[in-house]
Every structure is written in structure tokens, then in C-alpha cells.
């Protein structure tokens, strides 16, 4: 009886030796991504792409930079824009419930991707609270869907 107990204890001890594989251990929440710079939305092979530019140079507004399109280097990396050059200058006004993005070209000529670029740059998806975006052009002003970008 006593010997049996001893065997069990020894077996238990040796089984618990060393480092055993474990279950998944939960830690803290994933660290937030600090977007330190200018955040613009361009297209990469037709996919809405978030671009963070180091804010080295002073600039007027993200929408102005967006209207200027990708830099040469960004173009080499495959980034494109569907916002027509005629859309510049682009301005933005806001009240309590809506953000109005005003462009200088007709809204009807904007592609869906171009609208998404404008919406996401004006009101990024991580901004709280989300507000209604309205794109206003010389021809019309249209409320658009919220930014569809998902990282």
C-alpha cells in the first residue's frame, strides 16, 4: 500500500518535471497603433489603403494633400488615386451632426473609390464619434456611407 503511494507520488513528480506545453495564456489588450503623421487614403490595386506620411512638411489640410495625389515614391510603390485633379481645392466644414466635404468638380463624376477616399480621409474610421459625411460639389451634395476601411 505504502509502496503504491510512493510510486504514485514519484510518477506525479516526474510527470510534472520540466516545461510542459500550456494552454493559451491571456495577456493585456493589444497595443494601440499610434498614427503619428498624416493619414491619407489612396488605392493600391483598387484596394482602399491607409497611408501614413511622416508629417515633416507643414500642410493645410489632409484633403489638400489627398487632392494632390500620391507622391512619386508612393506611385512607384503602386499607390494610385481616383480623385480627379479637377476636384481640388477640397475643403471641409463641420457642424454638430455632419461633416461636409466640398469639392470643385461634379460629385456625379466621382467613382465609389474616390468617395471612399474622401470620406475616410475626412473622418477616419477610428475617429469617435462617427458623423455623417456629405460630399458637396457644384452639381449636388450627397450624403455618403461611412468609411468602409477596415485595417
Amino acid at each position: 500500500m505504502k509502496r503504491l503511494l510512493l510510486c504514485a507520488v514519484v510518477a506525479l513528480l516526474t510527470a510534472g518535471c520540466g516545461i510542459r506545453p500550456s494552454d493559451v495564456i491571456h495577456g493585456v489588450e493589444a497595443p494601440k497603433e499610434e498614427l503619428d503623421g498624416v493619414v491619407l487614403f489612396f488605392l493600391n490595386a483598387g484596394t482602399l489603403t491607409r497611408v501614413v506620411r511622416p508629417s515633416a512638411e507643414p500642410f493645410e489640410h489632409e484633403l489638400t494633400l489627398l487632392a494632390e495625389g500620391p507622391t512619386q515614391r508612393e506611385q512607384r510603390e503602386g499607390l494610385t488615386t481616383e480623385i480627379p485633379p479637377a476636384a481640388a481645392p477640397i475643403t471641409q466644414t463641420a457642424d454638430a451632426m455632419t461633416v461636409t466635404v466640398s469639392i470643385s468638380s461634379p460629385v456625379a463624376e466621382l467613382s465609389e473609390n474616390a468617395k471612399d477616399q474622401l470620406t475616410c480621409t475626412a473622418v477616419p474610421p477610428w475617429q469617435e464619434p462617427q458623423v455623417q459625411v456629405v460630399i458637396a460639389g457644384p452639381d449636388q451634395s450627397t450624403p455618403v456611407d461611412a468609411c468602409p476601411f477596415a485595417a
Partner: protein
Amino acid sequence: MTRWWGLQSRLLVAFAALVVLTAVAVAGAMYAQARTEILQRSQDAAVESLLDDLESAYPVPRMPPTEPEMSVLAERLSERTIAVTVNYGDQWVGDLDRSLVSPELSATVAEGIVAWQRVDAMDRPVLVIGTRVGNSQLRVYAARDLWPEESSIAAMASRVWLIAGAALVAAMLLALLAARGVLRPVHELRQAAARLGSGDLTARVTPQGSDELADVATTFNETAAALQNQVGELTRMEAEARRFVVDVSHELRTPLAAMTAVTDVLDEEADSLTPDAAQAARLVSQETRNLTNLVNDLIEITRFDSGRATLVTDDLNVPDVVRATLRTRGWTTEVQTELPETVVAQLDPRRLDVIVANLVGNALSHGEPPVTLTLRDSPDVFTITVTDEGPGLPPEVLPHVFSRFYKADTARTRSAGSSGLGLAIARENAHLHGGTLTAANRPTGGAVFTLRLPKGQPR
């Protein structure tokens, strides 16, 4: 003498069990604690360094990231890890084996929680840490080798085993010492008790220390001393009683001798007395003879008791002695005999005569005729059986038939001429020859006394 399950082995086993249990409990608990701590510390450090590296790599310039960007990120994170993989959707970039990332881990990481898991990779413990980058679908998994921790834990375990083993050996030695300390007095006590049991009343033990065993030893000594005193007292009293009997017997002899002379004269003169006086004279004469027999028997039995009885042996023909006994007592006609011609034995003729006379006299006075005496010869011993045709001995009498002064019938006075010592003396004589005398009942009724005596020199 060592017993398999003696005190020593029990002590050893108990000590060993105690040490093993204590060592297992203490070392096991400490080992588990230390292992958890080592692992926790290194895991936390690994997680922290990964998160630090990750944060220094922020922000990811493109989202969704391009493959070159993912490799750049993997490259930056791989400095302090053994393998890294960066995952976005279906894209996996990096050198970490994807099979090490368990579905549970990736599910937890997808919920936005930093998570880690220990897995076995090629028999080496590996820590796989996973985290999401910000709020995106970009996930990073990094593996860290736990081999250094494993080896330090193994070193700790072997030290624990070593110490436990040393403790076990020390405990065994202690147990042996303790067992020896307990067993030595016990052994001594046993020897003393054995000596006491075999009659050495002076046996004592030396009590050592002041423990329970010393108490036992003291008690043993006191008991032995008390026993010695009592036995000494009893021996002294018995010796006194015996001496008293001897003295009384000897004191009675002289007056009895005188009385016998007087009663002899009275017997001769009885015819010339009046019938009443003659009867009284014969009665006195008879009782005087009985008393003389009793005194002689008493003296004889005290000789046996004091060990002063000696054999005066001679080579003789047993049938001749038996015939002489019967003839002297005048029993030749009353006793049927079956005697071989010659049975030569070396024994004391006077004592054989006493035995045979007692057996035959007993049969004649207590049993019914015919009384038969049979002598049988065999190589080393001869047997004499005396049987009668009476009712035999009652079962309750049988064990006491050789006891001194035992009365078969308490209501009855002793039969005339019997001292009550005859059979006891007969048996003592048989024993003195190295033989036996037994009494029994025959199946057909009647008592049978069997005497077996060796033919050679006794002892």
C-alpha cells in the same frame, strides 16, 4: 536474529516514508513554485520586449500592408526572437512555422488580446507570443526559445533530487541508530527474560537512560527480585516442612520400636487374656505396625524429595525378584503370574521389590481377584503389568492415583495397612530407574498398572 518485519525495518520504513513524503511535499511545492516563477518572469519579459519592438515599428506605413512591408516588420521583430511571422488575412510572411500557432492562440489574438502559449517544437519548449497590431487584421507571432529556462529548471530539479536523496540517506542512518538504541535494551531484556524463564532467578538487566525502556528494565528487575524472594521463601518453607517431617518421622521411630516390642509381647499373651482385652491388644498391635509402615514410608518419600535416594544396582534376574516378592508377602497363591524364565536387568532389587509389592498389594486390597502379574521382555526394557478384575478406577481418580495420601473414596477411611504413600513411592522408584509407572483401565474392566523399566544402567 533479524525479523523481516521487525522493529528495525518498521522504523526504517517509517523514517523513509516520512522523509520521502516531506521531501516530495516541500520540494515538490517549491519546485512547482519556482518553475512557475521562472516561466512567468521570462514569459512576461519576452512579451514585453516583443511589444516594445512592435511599438517602435509603428506606424505601419501601409494598411493593408504590402508583402515587402510585412517582411520589413518581421525583420525588425526578429532581433530578440528565434522566429517571427507576420500575418494579414491569408498572407503569412516570416520564418516562424505556422503549425506552431494554434487555432486557439490565433482566435484569442483576433479578439485583440496579447496571448502566448508554450508548445513543443522538436522536443524543445518554445514560447509563441501573438498580438494584433492596433485595431487591424495585422497580427504578429513571435517564438522564443525556452531552453535556458528548461535547463535551469532541470538543474533545480536535479538539485532537489540530490538533496532529497541525501536527506533520505541521513534519515536511514538516523533510523538505524534509533532502532539500534531501542533494540539493544530490548535484546538485553529478552535474554534476561529467557534466563529467568530457564530458572536463573538472579537474571537482571542494566537500565540505561530514563526512557520508557529503562522503566521496563527497572520493572523487570523489580519483578525478578520479587520472584527470587518468593521462590527463595517457598524453597525455604518447603525445606523446613520436609525437615519437619523427617524429624517427626525419626522422633517417632524410637518409641515405635519400643511399642512394637510391647505389642509383640501382647500378641503372644492375647490368648490368655479376656476376649475383649485380646481384641484390643490385637488392634493396638495392628495399628502400631501400620504406624511403623507409615513412618518408614514417610522417611522413604522425604529421601526422594530431597534427592538423597540412591540406586544400589545389581545384575539380576527379574522373574526371580518378582517371585521372591510374592513369596515373602505370602501372595503366591492369590496372584497368577506369567513370567519368562530369564529377564536379566541391572537395577536395585530392593526398589523393584517395593514397586511390585505396592502394585500387587494395591490390586489385592482395592481390586477384585484374580490378580494377574505379567512380565514381558523386549530388547531394551521390560514391562510388568498388574491387572485385576475389579470395577477399575473411576475416571476422576485416575489422574490422582499416584498422588500422596489421595483417597479414592473420601467417605471411606484408608484401608488397613495402607499408608497412602505406596503408589507414590512406587512411581518415585520407577522414575529413579529411568522408567515409568502408569495406571489405566482395561476396556474389559479392571485396573491395569504398567511398569516399564530399562534393562541397562539408568542415566
